[in-house]
């Protein structure tokens, strides 16, 4: 079992909590896990990415090579296709639809979506909208994990455990909201793929 996942988004969107939840789920299952975090300038709005590698064998580099990623999990649409060279031939692009438009030359969103749809395996999800509908806009990134949950090579219940572990100290309400978001993401992806 090997899952190489590129997490991408824009500074301040919370890709690191995605990495933390999946990472804890992986190590509690006894898998090897390595994560490359990108730190740098503390400002918001720059592109950020994190490489998350999970395997039942020892992992050497923390970096995923070009053509090696099983999944690009992105919380911003343009950021999902920035990292396409990393994607393997049969890899999945799972991305949020809401653009984070803080640059002068943000491409036409229709062009961005067309590019994403060129990848044969993709899920486009409006995670912001889904999170708002369940009354927890901050849980958008958990919706994204839910959308990817069928491709992570681990049981769904492990992800729920990961959320309980990470958000446990913030109280039951926060945990439940995040689990609800996870479920909403999962349901959306299942329906999306049936179409």
């Amino acid at each position, binding site marked *: 079992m090997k899952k190489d996942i590129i997490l991408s988004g824009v500074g301040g969107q919370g890709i690191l909590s995605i990495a933390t939840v999946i*990472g804890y789920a992986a190590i509690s299952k006894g898998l090897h896990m390595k994560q490359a975090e990108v730190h740098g*300038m503390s400002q918001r709005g*720059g592109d950020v990415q994190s490489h998350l590698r999970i395997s039942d064998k020892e992992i050497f580099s923390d970096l995923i090579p070009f053509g090696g990623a099983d999944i690009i999990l992105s919380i911003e649409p*343009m950021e999902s296709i920035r990292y396409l060279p990393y*994607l393997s031939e049969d890899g999945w692009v799972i991305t949020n639809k809401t653009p984070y438009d803080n640059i002068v030359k943000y491409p036409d969103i229709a062009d961005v979506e067309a590019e994403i749809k060129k990848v044969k395996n993709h899920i486009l999800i409006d995670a912001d909208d889904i999170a708002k509908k369940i009354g927890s806009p901050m849980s958008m990134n958990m919706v994204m994990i839910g959308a990817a949950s069928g491709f992570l090579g681990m049981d769904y219940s492990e992800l729920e455990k990961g959320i309980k572990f990470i958000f446990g100290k913030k109280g039951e309400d926060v945990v439940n909201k995040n689990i609800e978001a996870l479920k909403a993401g999962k349901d959306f992806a299942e329906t999306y793929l049936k179409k």
Partner: protein
Amino acid sequence: MKKFYEQLTDKQPWNGLFMGNHAVARAMLEAGVKVITSYPGSPTPEIAEALNSVPQEMRDYHFEWATNEKVATEIAFGSSINGNLSTVFFKSVGLNVASDSFVQLGLMNLTGGLVIILGDDPGANSSQNEQDNRHFARMSYIPVMEPATPAEAYQMFLEAAKLSKQHQMPIILRLTTHVCHAKELIKFGSVGESKGFRADFDAKNGPYLPITRAVFPLKKKAMEKLDLLKKVSEKSPFNKIYSPFGSGDINGKKLGIISSSMPALSIMENLDKAGKSVDLLQINFSYPMPEEMISDYLKGRDEVLIIEELDRIMEYEIKSLAFDRNIKCRILTRGTHEEIMGELTSERTWDILSGHWPQVFEINIDPVHEPFANPRIAQMCPGCGHRSAFHAIKQALPEGTITVGDIGCHSLGFFEPYNMGEMLLSMGHSNGTAAGLTIGNERRKVLAFIGDSTFFHAGLPAIINAVLYDHDFTLVVMENNTTAMTGHQPHAGTGEIGEKISIDKVLESFGVKFIRRIDTYQQKKLAEYIKESLDHKGFSVVIASHPCMLKFMKQQRRKEGFVQKHVEIDQNKCERHLTCIEKFGCPSFKKNDDGSITVNEDLCIGDGSCRPTCPVSAIDFKKEAE
């Protein structure tokens, strides 16, 4: 989940998912380090983040943000010769600042031990160059350990601390960006009982005065210590062979690779992918080099390819070893200038490997998918006081003015639409460089920038010089009351450590005749001051101040009952001059397809610093719904 500091200080052994920087902080506690000093700089500030997370009363150590890297090094030296195990850490270019004292450390008998952690930055991810600090180690007779992973960084720190105490010598732990920031599960040991601070300095442990002829016995001793450490590196478990498919003949030749730290990991992955009988000697305890181990490796192979990140250091030493020992192995190396630059990721090392041995590394690794995205160039945050300052200053400058940049968030002023701060060498260079630009220059005005942390770090000597000679330029102190770029660390002027040291009073005491202070949101007044200061004959200073709004907003959002404010554009007033977008350049403004301008409320913080920039006053605070 335990709180972070509870994990960090847990007395019992445990397994933790930690990044490299946090792992070395844990290692410091296990090793019993008493004094730790630093100056903030990527990729290492998270070491301090970990150390500072521990409540003061639980600390068995003293941690200090020093004014600069040289001061930090000297504090660590002083505490070490008092018998305390000490550590200093900073970023790659920080060693240039520290170097005047650092290069002496190898000569000294460091009774308590001293580990120097260097955060080198191959790829220049957050630095003004990608200098290879292994050069400095050789110049200063100081051993180097180069971990490849966070777990190894933890283990190596413990080993470095042990050897440093045992031989009373400094040891460098050289981390690179990906070791600092990678995360993995690490098996930690226990933290022992606290031992008190020592004050055992005795000149007899020295001598500690390297003057003229006294230098030679000290230098001899430094070299003898290195000889001892060579024996350790020969047997070090950090130097090892990776041989997934044995080391058989390929077309009648035995092939091998020598590498170290992170690129060695890339190579290990590539060896697995290639599936051929080539092996790898990984040298992570890299200086002094384990000569016997390397000789044996070379002797057993027909061709050995040396792949190291950045400069050709290991390569030249191995070649000279092979020459001296008359070893017949053919030594192959990286060829192009490009291969001397940047991080050696697995696809880049694959290219180097397949360039030499196409029959072994034969799979095509070209990407299947092409990228499609426009860059998100680093930019100042919404509400940043620097934006208001640049916007106002730009309008006040006469044609042909030369502007000198410095290090900090305000370096971003060089990008569109401000284009200010046109050259950069190092922390605090701006005053010296500006002075040079004024000499014999009757024609063009000169204006320099400096941040407030940098003012204290390395700005003062050149400012004193400018006062002494009354060099005719204007210094703008871009004060934001923090060290913003590296994550909001305190400095001498913030009042978070000791009593705030006033920049104004420092300048007055130097005898600066023209000093003005203004909040940068007062753009009109700031522009007036800039004009006035440039007309002033001789050295002048304008302190353009506004607190870092990223830090301020983080604090505000935590407050009970916080309501996010925004600005809005009165579409009836807006005449589409586009000043807010094209000249002021706040990312919160968006030009729509129909030509109208609206505010992106996800970005806007409602600071209102944009309001005075609109020529028709179409921007105002939004009346938020109750």
